[in-house]
């Protein structure tokens, strides 16, 4: 009976000499580790609005809403729904999303948990469908290099961006023939424009 007690006493003395194990928090800051996945921030200038983060999110904490009237794409992140798994950070090629080391999220109301960015959309001139965001088209154009000039949509966006054409000129009624193909068209409409040439209207 004596020996075990001594052992436990040793532990107690060691704890006494070693000082308190308890943190000073909240009177002293307690920073999280370097890899900690905390509150998420958007880097708007890096984001191209592709929506990959929305696809991979397991918790439906991200929303993608296309506003056709305002021609904007709204990418929302709902902090209170986020499970801090880091999937969107991993899959974002542009490093537009980042988990910070901040963890204090407590609030008295649910307001303020949502943050969003808006991106300019490009829509089809014929059917009005969403093509994608302007930033993504520019990124594709940059990626394919000179081949961008083989696709009228990319060419138009690129020349506009470079300031060669200030504005896409007003044109008359749409003609579904080759003369009408130099417009911003969604893939489906572009197909029908080209096929009309061959098989007729």
């Amino acid at each position, binding site marked *: 009976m004596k020996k075990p007690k001594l052992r436990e006493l040793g532990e107690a003395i060691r704890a006494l000499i070693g000082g308190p194990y308890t943190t000073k928090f*909240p009177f002293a800051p307690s920073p999280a580790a370097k890899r900690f996945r905390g509150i998420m921030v958007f880097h708007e200038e890096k984001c191209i609005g592709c929506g990959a983060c929305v696809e991979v999110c397991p918790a439906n904490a991200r929303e993608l809403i296309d506003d056709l009237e305002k021609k904007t794409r709204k990418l929302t992140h709902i902090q209170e729904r986020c499970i801090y798994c880091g999937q969107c950070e991993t899959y974002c090629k542009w490093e537009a999303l980042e988990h910070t080391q901040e*963890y204090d999220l*407590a609030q008295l109301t649910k307001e303020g948990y949502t943050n969003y960015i808006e991106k300019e959309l490009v829509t089809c001139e014929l059917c009005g469908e969403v093509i994608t965001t302007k930033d993504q088209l520019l990124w594709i154009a940059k990626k394919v290099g000179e081949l961008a000039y083989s696709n009228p949509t990319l060419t138009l966006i690129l020349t506009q961006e470079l300031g060669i054409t200030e504005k896409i000129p007003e044109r008359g009624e749409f003609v579904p023939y080759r003369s009408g193909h130099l417009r911003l068209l969604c893939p489906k409409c572009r197909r029908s424009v080209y096929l009309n040439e061959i098989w007729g209207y």
Partner: protein
Amino acid sequence: MSRKFWALKKSPWVFHVSAASCNNCDIEILDALTPKFDLERFGIRKVGTPRHADALLVTGVINRKNISRVLRVYEQAAKPCIIIAVGTCACNTNMFEPSYNVVGPFDKHLPVSVYIPGCPPKPEAIIMGVVKALGSL
């Protein structure tokens, strides 16, 4: 500030209600009571029955089977009683929203005072949440 709130602020006793949670937030709450974080420094104690509690720490989502039990625990708690929703499940239904057995997050059924999102929130975040809840009184 009424005397009742003054007393509550000095040493809030909490009761831990776990609905359908994954147990992680529960463990982090318990962790906040152990040597590293030691909530008893602030007079916060975990009690064994809702009748003694000033605050309810709720975790998890509410499902069809435990809703009656959760509501009964809230009825038993002495008022005024603040409800602190710990974790993403309690604040919102996390990824369980489409499930057939889940009837919603806590604020749909009970008046929640403070939300602490996180999956799970760090014990530090829980401490900050409790501090904010007491500061709001």
